[in-house]
């Protein structure tokens, strides 16, 4: 028979779309999951990092002799001991430039907390004593601590051999000047977002050892096992002599996308030939692990009297810290979705990232698309206000639809369903709350967003999956994904269960081992369901196609009439004619037909964009959403309390609705935390937020129940038309909360976080004027 493709799979589904309990959660509630720091090996040493105390300084001398001589110290390493003290990066992925980031600072430190030396010792206390015994003589140097100032011609250079401008992406479509001339209303504002820490509850950790076969093995809390190649380069080993294993993560959010502990713990294990555990303290993590980029975003937006957007001119400036990491890609994502989910015929965007001597910045959930949401949605509200329209009205006149051209010139290939999404979010707020105190003012706001899922098409993304039956009819999936806590592994089981008719509890999913699981690319860019989900469905479909003829002959039925369900092969419409899948497997074995295979999914790929105009293919697809919030502002203190938060996203198809809702709820609260509370304060390169007590992530008392609303348009590019949902829910809350604050007390904040003090100051500075009731109302 003709092979069924996944798209032709019968609907309704048996397994997909059900809120199945996740197998990994059953382990987690019992405390049996062994996270990276929970691994123990005999003779294991404790590894620690000595970090720079200055943000910009020359290292005149490092003296390690005393430390090396201390009891219990197995190794003290400096830059001289690193076989290849450089991590070679192609910051754009386009081969435009290359960059060598030092593993350990040799003669120069460029941010406070930069690794300078490594220690391995018999105990954490001995390692700490050794750190304190290393003497480093620094000569402080002028640094650059402000992204804008970094661009000045006379600014100190972070890298002597290159200017501070790391990347400048351009997007040009139409004629913005002509567009503004045609506009009846123009709003021009500058928005600022802050440095944010991922604050995964699990700090960075790994255990590394040199295995019996000489393979350097690192069991690490990482989102990306493919880093084994970079570690091999650093150790000057063949790539196949380094293995990275990723157990279940205690949260990632992009903070474990770049390497964290891996190169350091690998170096120590390689040098000492003993197992080494490295666990970063929370304070170390806050001090030096890359953060979300602070953005300065200047927006000029023009619209006609009837609320149609005509032109948008945008300048984005991101503080990258001293090394590229993923900054060029983060600001590229910001560039592509800088106008949000709206049609804008004339667009000019300049997106830049610059080197500074501040703590590095890189990937975080939302990846540039998050920051611009605050700006473009605030612009929509301000335009609505100027034009005397409601927030809903102006948005609905400009929402992107399938087939519309994006500012990059490419067409939107899937339905965005924005009117429906927005209506559902707004409706979910229900009746307006009453203030809880005389000084309380209640207000509401909405914000919509679009977030790419999948990697930029020029990376030619690929994911592989191996799938096979055991003799007893149980199923095994091997996929080199990492599971950050979002149910990445469980969702693969659910997909395979759907296609092959194996019950999920009969499926084992092996993940996260660069030596033994087929590489799938890391878990980032909301790509894992899209890429590995498609790969598993494809593999399962191919396996099914090989086994159906065998089952058909055993059942003496025509192939199109055979189905796999409930661990059996059966004849459609004849419930009594079933045989166990194990029998089909045995028959395949007898006939020499394989019951396992490796398959792969090739993501969409295309040539790079035009670098002068930003025109071309960029991301495979986007996930769209709208959040509606209700807040109460204490007009006397500026304190903002979120009373209601409804978050609606089109996920194409919910593979596991309960997991999808969980992503939406958690992402929305993370976004609301960024809106109101969270900030890593850095002054002149010195991090002032190195205590967890001072980095304010929301507690259960700070946020309301989140109403997660799931729309299933059937329009995504993932398996069974699913869209990615990991990152999208983080984007809308800041703009929605800003709108709600304005609704409540009449002031629009343009800088995050919207602390009580900022709200208080804005309220106090507000010019007295009559309130325009129609303005920007939801």
């Amino acid at each position: 028979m003709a092979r069924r493709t996944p798209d032709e799979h019968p609907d309704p589904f048996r397994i997909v779309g059900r809120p199945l309990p996740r197998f990994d959660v059953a382990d987690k509630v019992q405390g049996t999951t062994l996270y990276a720091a929970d691994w123990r090996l005999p003779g294991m040493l404790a590894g620690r990092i000595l970090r720079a105390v200055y943000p910009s300084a020359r290292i005149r001398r490092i003296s390690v002799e005393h430390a090396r001589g201390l009891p219990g110290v197995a190794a003290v390493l400096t830059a001289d001991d690193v076989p290849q003290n450089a991590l070679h990066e192609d910051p754009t992925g386009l081969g435009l430039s290359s960059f060598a980031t030092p593993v350990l600072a040799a003669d120069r430190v460029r941010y406070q907390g930069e690794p300078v030396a490594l220690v391995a010792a018999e105990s954490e206390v001995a390692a700490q004593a050794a750190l304190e015994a290393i003497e480093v003589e620094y000569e402080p140097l002028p640094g650059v601590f402000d992204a804008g100032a970094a661009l000045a011609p006379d600014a100190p250079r972070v890298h002597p051999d290159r200017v501070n401008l790391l990347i400048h992406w351009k997007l040009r479509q139409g004629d913005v000047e002509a567009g503004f001339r045609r506009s009846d209303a123009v709003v021009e504002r500058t928005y600022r977002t802050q440095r944010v820490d991922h604050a995964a509850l699990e700090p960075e950790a790994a255990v590394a050892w040199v295995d019996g076969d000489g393979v350097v093995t690192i069991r690490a809390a990482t989102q990306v096992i493919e880093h084994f190649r970079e570690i091999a380069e650093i150790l000057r080993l063949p790539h196949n002599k380094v293995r990275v294993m990723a157990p279940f993560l205690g949260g990632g959010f992009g903070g474990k996308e770049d390497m964290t502990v891996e190169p350091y713990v690998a170096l120590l294990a390689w040098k000492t030939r003993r197992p080494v555990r490295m666990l970063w303290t929370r304070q170390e993590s806050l001090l030096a692990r890359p953060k979300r980029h602070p953005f300065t975003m200047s927006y000029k937006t023009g619209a006609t009297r009837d609320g149609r957007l005509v032109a948008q001119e945008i300048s984005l400036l991101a503080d990258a810290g001293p090394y590229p990491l993923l900054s060029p890609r983060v600001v590229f994502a910001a560039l592509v979705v800088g106008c949000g989910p709206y049609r804008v015929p004339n667009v000019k965007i300049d997106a830049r990232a610059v080197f500074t001597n501040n703590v590095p910045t890189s990937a975080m959930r939302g990846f540039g698309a998050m920051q611009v949401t605050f700006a473009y949605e605030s612009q929509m509200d301000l335009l609505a206000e100027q034009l005397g329209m409601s927030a809903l009205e102006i948005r609905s006149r400009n929402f992107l639809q399938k087939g519309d051209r994006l500012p990059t010139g490419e067409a939107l290939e899937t339905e965005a369903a924005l009117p429906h999404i927005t209506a559902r979010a707004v409706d979910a707020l229900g009746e307006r709350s009453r203030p809880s105190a005389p000084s309380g003012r209640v207000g509401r706001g909405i914000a919509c967003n679009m977030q790419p899922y999948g990697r930029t098409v020029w990376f030619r993304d690929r994911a592989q999956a191996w799938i096979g039956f055991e003799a007893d009819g149980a199923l095994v999936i091997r996929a080199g994904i990492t599971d950050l806590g979002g149910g990445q592994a469980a969702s693969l089981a659910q997909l395979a269960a759907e296609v092959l008719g194996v019950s999920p509890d009969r499926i084992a999913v092996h993940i996260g081992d660069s030596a033994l699981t087929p590489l799938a690319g890391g878990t980032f860019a909301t790509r894992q369901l899209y890429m590995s989900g498609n790969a598993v469905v494809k593999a399962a479909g191919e396996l099914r196609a090989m086994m159906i003829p065998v089952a058909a002959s055993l059942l003496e039925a025509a192939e199109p009439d055979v189905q796999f369900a409930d661990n059996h092969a059966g004849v459609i419409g004849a419930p009594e004619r079933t045989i166990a899948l194990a029998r089909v497997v045995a028959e395949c074995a007898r006939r020499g037909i394989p019951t396992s295979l490796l398959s792969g999914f090739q993501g969409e790929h295309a040539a790079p964009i035009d670098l002068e105009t930003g025109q071309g293919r960029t991301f495979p697809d986007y996930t769209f959403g709208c959040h509606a919030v209700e807040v109460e502002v204490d007009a006397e203190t500026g304190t903002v309390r979120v009373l209601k938060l409804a978050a609606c996203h089109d996920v194409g198809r919910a593979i596991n609705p309960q997991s999808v809702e969980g992503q939406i709820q958690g992402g929305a609260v993370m976004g609301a935390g960024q809106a109101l509370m969270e900030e890593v304060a850095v002054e002149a390169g010195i991090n002032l937020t190195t205590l967890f007590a001072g980095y304010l992530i929301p507690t259960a008392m700070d946020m309301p129940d989140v109403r997660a609303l799931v729309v299933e348009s059937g329009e995504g590019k993932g398996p069974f038309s699913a869209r990615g949902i990991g990152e999208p829910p983080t984007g809308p809350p800041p703009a929605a909360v800003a709108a709600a604050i304005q609704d409540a007390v009449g002031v629009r904040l343009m800088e995050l976080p919207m602390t009580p003090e900022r709200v208080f100051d804005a309220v106090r500075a507000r010019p007295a004027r009559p309130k325009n009731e129609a303005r920007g109302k939801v």
Partner: protein
Amino acid sequence: MYPSPFAYHAPVTMGETLALLARLPEAKILAGGQSLLPLMNLGLAQPGALVDVNGLPGLETVTEDGGGLRLGALVRHRTLETSPLIRRRCPALAEAASLIGNIRVRHRGTLGGSLAHADPAAELPLVAVALGATLEISRLAGAREVSAAEFFRGYLLTDLAPGELVTGVRIPAIAPGTGYGLAELVRRAGDFAIVAACAVITTDGAGVCRQASLAIGGVGPHPLVMRRAEGLLTGGPLTDRRLAEAADAVPGEVAPESDVHATAAYRRAMARVMAYRALAQARARAASGPGRPA
């Protein structure tokens, strides 16, 4: 995360404890450990010796003391929060304790430890000052008492000399017609307050203020007593206007500093708002019936 090694002493009698403290003036006293252990975990405190006083008998008791209360220094925050006697006799203390940190901190943290640590934004020092509490202090040479208002001397600095130990706290009897108010501004539930205010007001039957006490935390090196505001209230009727005048006097009496969470100017402004709210709460409670204790 791993404290540096130290010599550990766990005396079981007061005499032994005071002798140790006299012999080891640099030793740190370990009570609940909820402020000391974090500092040690971070390497910010590396004491050579620790004197663990948790084994001392009798320091966890709460007793009636005349019309007031006598609390042992090792009474845990959780006990302050939940003890029926404390909730009846001194609900201000119970409410203040309920605002501290998180449930785990409250189960271990102690009254004496919180006072001796003297964080300028902590709840218990603030309430102790507002309630006119007296601290009992022991040393090898004998015992002494000091009022809470005099005990706090500066940022994390108290009247305690090396070798001395806070052993108990006495809360004076609360007159009929007294009410308390506690208002704090926090950036996140359970965190140290940006500004906190505690007011205790005693009225006569006719609604005239006989006595007012107002202390503010988070706006100086330690909880500050608002003498001018108290003076403006005492002897007059407790109208909204009088309360506002008293609150207006607060910004002139505080000395806040800026940090990453709030500027000095904002703290100053909030000191007024929190003062008013605490006073208004205290007035309402004082008026809700004579005999209603603070």
